[in-house]
């Protein structure tokens, strides 16, 4: 009976990893829809291609080397041991002998972790949208998923020096979101803003997204996926206290998103006189990112406030970045970076130490920013990051993908006599 229970708990917790991992995988669809809805029609197919490719690259590189760098058998605390590919899994005998200390499949842990890497990469694709070439971007993703993300992930979740210092980051406001946003920031600074986005004397030109229903759908998908992101990061569910913990996490995650939406929407109404849907969508994400560093400790009321503040921060950050002429078509740097910082600081409201959180923020930011800057620069020097002015005008769908996302609604087809053959 005892062994049966141990095996059952193992199976349940393994299932938990797998199902929560699948939820986080679904966030890839969320990012894809959100980004494609916020870019212009002529650049939609390219961002769709970018998103599905980066997810695939993340899975491949993390399996080849990233996972082992992040969770090594040994390491100095700063430099992890190097190993390639995935190892084996636990046998029933080992599990039963451990009395339940070994409580999940190694493969399920890998699966749960790999979808987080993809999330970090996905943050970058939105910020560099509409003017970066596809393959140089994918090349950066190879480095992001095999080196940049895993090393700083090792420092915190792999048992490295940040973890030893007491830095807290439950589900990845820092390790995933701040890291992704910082890599995006470095990329955007080298890439430059979209042609026509900024004018003289600080004038900012609007470039409205082509499909707000998709953007909204994407946000809801991300919201749903986030239950896996935060809920799964409790890492275990098979007893009363853990099941309760997971439940609090789900509730807090949900409330933080809700607070983020209303914070951003109300602020947008007050600041612009209009209720900007795209700000509300970014607010939801900002709220979710804000609670991700510590979704368990706060009361539901506090989680709501943390998310609401995230929603306010996102609006201010978007406006500020535009003032600094840092062009981010989807608000990724604001929702994931600025709110990631807030989320890490907010941990100190309920647990941990503010000083240690600041320390962690600086480490993650500096590592990611400097290494990303170097890699982006090298890729730019060798291959060039940016499309030509002509390609940007025509739309990257044509130049990078050779097809259009909405061919029946494009200018090129309006004058064509017959696109679909009648014979």
């Amino acid at each position, binding site marked *: 009976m005892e062994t049966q229970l141990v095996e059952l708990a193992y199976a349940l917790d393994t299932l938990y990893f797998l199902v929560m991992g699948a939820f986080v995988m679904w966030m890839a669809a969320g990012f894809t829809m959100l980004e494609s809805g916020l870019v212009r029609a002529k650049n939609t197919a390219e961002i769709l291609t970018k998103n599905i490719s980066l997810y695939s690259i993340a899975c491949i590189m993390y399996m080849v080397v990233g996972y082992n760098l992040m969770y090594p058998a040994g390491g100095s605390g700063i430099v992890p041991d190097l190993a390639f590919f995935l190892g084996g899994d636990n046998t029933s005998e080992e599990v039963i002998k451990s009395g339940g200390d070994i409580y999940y499949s190694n493969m399920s842990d890998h699966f749960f972790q790999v979808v987080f890497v993809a999330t970090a990469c996905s943050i970058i694709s939105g910020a560099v949208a509409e003017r970066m070439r596809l393959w140089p971007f994918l090349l950066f993703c190879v480095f992001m998923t095999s080196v940049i993300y895993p090393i700083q992930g090792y420092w915190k979740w792999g048992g490295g020096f940040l973890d030893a210092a007491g830095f807290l980051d439950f589900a990845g406001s820092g390790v995933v979101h701040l890291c992704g946003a910082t890599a995006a920031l470095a990329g955007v600074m080298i890439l430059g803003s979209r042609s026509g986005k900024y004018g003289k004397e600080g004038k*900012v*030109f*609007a*470039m*409205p997204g082509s499909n707000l229903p998709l953007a909204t759908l994407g946000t809801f998908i991300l919201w749903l996926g986030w239950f896996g992101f935060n809920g799964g990061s409790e890492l275990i569910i098979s007893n009363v206290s853990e099941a309760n913990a997971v439940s609090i996490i789900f509730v807090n995650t949900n409330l933080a998103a809700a607070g983020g939406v209303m914070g951003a929407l109300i602020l947008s109404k007050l*600041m*612009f*006189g*209009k209720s*900007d849907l*795209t*700000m509300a969508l970014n607010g939801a994400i900002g709220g979710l990112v804000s609670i991700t560093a510590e979704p368990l400790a706060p009361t539901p009321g506090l989680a709501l406030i943390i998310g609401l503040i995230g929603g306010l921060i996102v609006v201010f950050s*978007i*406006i500020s970045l*535009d003032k600094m002429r840092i062009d981010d078509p989807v*608000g990724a740097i604001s929702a994931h970076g600025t709110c990631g910082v807030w989320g890490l600081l907010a941990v100190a409201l309920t647990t941990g130490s503010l000083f240690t959180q600041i320390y962690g923020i600086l480490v993650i930011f500096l590592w990611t920013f400097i290494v990303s800057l170097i890699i982006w620069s090298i890729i730019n020097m060798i291959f060039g990051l940016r499309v030509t002015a002509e390609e940007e005008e025509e739309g990257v769908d044509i130049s990078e993908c050779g097809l259009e996302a909405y061919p029946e609604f494009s200018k090129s087809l309006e004058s064509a006599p017959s696109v679909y053959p009648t014979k």
Partner: protein
Amino acid sequence: MKLVIAVIKPFKLDEVREALSAIGVQGITATEVKGFGRQKGHTELYRGAEYVVDFLPKVKLEIAVNDDLADKTIESILATAATGKIGDGKIFVLEIQEAIRVRTGEKGNKAL
């Protein structure tokens, strides 16, 4: 024969069409266009950035009529297409040199 070109607000299309039909106009060509007049368009906001929408959607009607129907056509359009607000549109009248019905080859007034 006169070609009456009327640029009107899109939501007025049905009303104008019915009024023209009532006075005996037998053919209209409609195109979706964009345009502005003296007062230009309006401003919209997107993520805090203001932008001016100069060109507003309009519908352009081209109506070929016999000379004796031209005045009534214009009156009909004026009566139904006007709202009294900015952006109501304009009417231009051109002289038609020749008109031909493609199916039968009829020319002149018989083609209208």
